[in-house]
């Protein structure tokens, strides 16, 4: 991987300087390669068997296994993203060619808690060229199972999420990157989107941006898609499912509103989350008496509406009118048909 190579070069420049007695900090790791057990020796299941050689690239015999305990050593704060999606472990392989000018191919295979978590990771960016992991098939729509761009393939296959990155893109590297992606999938289907997507409300005349839809469990992920608040004001966590996307009424180039749908393990958790949301985000409604299950309020970018229905909480933000905001939270899902 080119970035890893650059890190190692940085060390090569800096090590001759005075580094004595300067141990790396525990929470912001050194620039060196991750410390990880060989996959075959680590807990969490066997390493997926990938070809020893793809084209001119050959992999090392001993892949690295990264666990929750070592992920910050491997990718610094980036580990927060994977932990937010119920990360189990990561296996890392690097393919090198005898001709160094061809660059390398880095393979990262993330074992996630469920196919929903793998979907969530891919959903953080739907950009790129949709790719079918079944050579005879067509890319899934509207949520592809794999996306390729500039040498990087990202894919979901069951409860696996993977990144396959060629440090130098070429027709040859692209071919092998896609071949490795298919080998990782190895017959696993991308899987259906999370069931929660079928409960995203889509009022008549509205359209939802599938390419902006993010499945999340953590406020850090939500904030990377749509900054709501610095803290977790929605009571999120690994047992909570959330979806957010842009939506528009009428013309595609019309004003975008924000929809957030969260499903909690219980109605009590949803009610508690609504209280913290109103306290933090709509304090004017928190002070008002009356039904706390649903309501509307003017905000700086239009109107906000909220509605709790059992364990489900739906928020509509930045909506042009009060009626439209209310319509959004009161609409029913269309089993994903509107996405």
């Amino acid at each position: 991987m080119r970035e890893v190579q650059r890190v190692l070069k940085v060390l090569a420049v800096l090590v001759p300087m005075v580094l004595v007695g300067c141990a790396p900090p525990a929470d912001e790791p050194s620039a060196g390669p991750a410390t990880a057990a060989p996959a075959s020796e680590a807990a969490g299941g066997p390493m997926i068997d990938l070809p020893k050689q793809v084209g001119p690239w050959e992999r090392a015999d001993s892949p690295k296994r990264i666990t929750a305990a070592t992920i910050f050593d491997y990718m610094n704060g980036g580990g927060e993203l994977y932990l937010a999606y119920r990360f189990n472990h990561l296996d890392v392989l690097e393919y090198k060619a005898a001709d160094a000018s061809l660059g390398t191919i880095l393979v990262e295979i993330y074992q996630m808690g469920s196919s929903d978590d793998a979907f969530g990771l891919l959903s953080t960016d739907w950009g790129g060229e949709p790719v079918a992991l079944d050579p005879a098939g067509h890319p899934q729509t509207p949520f592809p199972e794999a996306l390729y761009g500039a040498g990087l393939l990202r894919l979901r296959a069951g409860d696996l999420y993977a990144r396959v990155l060629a440090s130098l893109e070429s027709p040859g590297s692209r071919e092998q990157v896609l071949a490795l992606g298919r080998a990782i999938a190895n017959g696993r289907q991308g899987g259906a989107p999370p069931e929660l997507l079928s409960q995203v409300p889509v009022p008549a005349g509205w359209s939802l941006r599938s390419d902006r839809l993010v499945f999340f469990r953590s406020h850090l992920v939500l904030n990377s898609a749509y900054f709501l608040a610095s803290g977790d004001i929605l009571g999120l966590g690994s047992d909570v499912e959330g979806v957010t996307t842009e939506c528009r009424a009428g013309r595609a180039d019309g004003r975008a509103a924000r929809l957030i749908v969260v499903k909690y393990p219980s109605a009590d958790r949803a009610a508690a989350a609504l209280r913290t949301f109103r306290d933090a985000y709509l304090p004017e409604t928190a002070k008002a008496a009356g039904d706390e299950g649903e309501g509307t309020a003017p905000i700086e970018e239009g109107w906000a509406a909220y509605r709790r229905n059992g364990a489900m909480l739906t928020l509509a933000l930045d909506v042009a009118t009060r009626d439209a905001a209310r319509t959004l939270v009161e609409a029913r899902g269309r089993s994903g048909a509107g996405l």
Partner: protein
Amino acid sequence: MRNITRRDFVRGTLGSVVAGSALTPAVAAAACQAGAQRPPRSARVVLVRDEAVLNAAHDVDIACLDRMLAETVTRMTGLKTSQAAWQSLFKPTDTVGLVATAHLNPTHPELLGAVVRSLVDAGIPRGQILSAQGRIDKPRACTALIAIPALKAHWLTGLGTVMKLYITYSDTPSRYHDAQNANLAETWLLPGVKGKTRLVLVDALRPLCDKGPQPDPRYMWDYKGLIASADPVAADTVGLRIITAKRRALRGEEWPLSPPPLCVQMADEKFGLGTSRMGEIELVRAGWTAEALI
């Protein structure tokens, strides 16, 4: 700690909100008071670009980079030679710490090498040039620092360039994640760090304009630039403009960083570390002008 919400951000009342949630109330209160009625500031930021510094495989032409660095420091100091420029910034008695980006689009090692050569040429003993990336003991061992971050967006702080560079000097870096990145300038004011940074040199050879958390080559591009200033906030302000313009160009519409990189504006208005107002920044350009984005 009070939450900073999107509504605060939109209302433009962030200054008071951030002050209320600051981790060091005394510093925050003083800084906020200063920021509210701060005096005019001025800063010079130098932007030097050369189309030949990277080839098609993104490899660095070291001779070209050396020339760019010399151009950068002479324009920043106003002195005629590179050696004189470096000597005006650092003395042979200094212990100079280099602080580079280690993860997610790391600083090019070729740039670090060029800086080391320049310092040695200016009379700084090689043994007095240290790596100062890491814990707080690193900068404490130095009399001067050079901040050499790579230009990049960051998924936990919006922008991950100058203001974020010293995050490892904090005991708990994670407290600056998300919207709390607004307080990142605190790390520049820690004992042992404050006042030591004499040069900010941003590696904008191949920036990363989306947040990661791991580098995606679709969001990296050969900008082929160096950005330098004595004012860290001004350097971040210029870098942020470039990142924002690139994101707009990629999507054909506004594509705001999320979480918002509050650290740049707050470093100015709350902490008084420099200026984030483009009207107060003298941008000195040299070299390649295509797609400068600013």
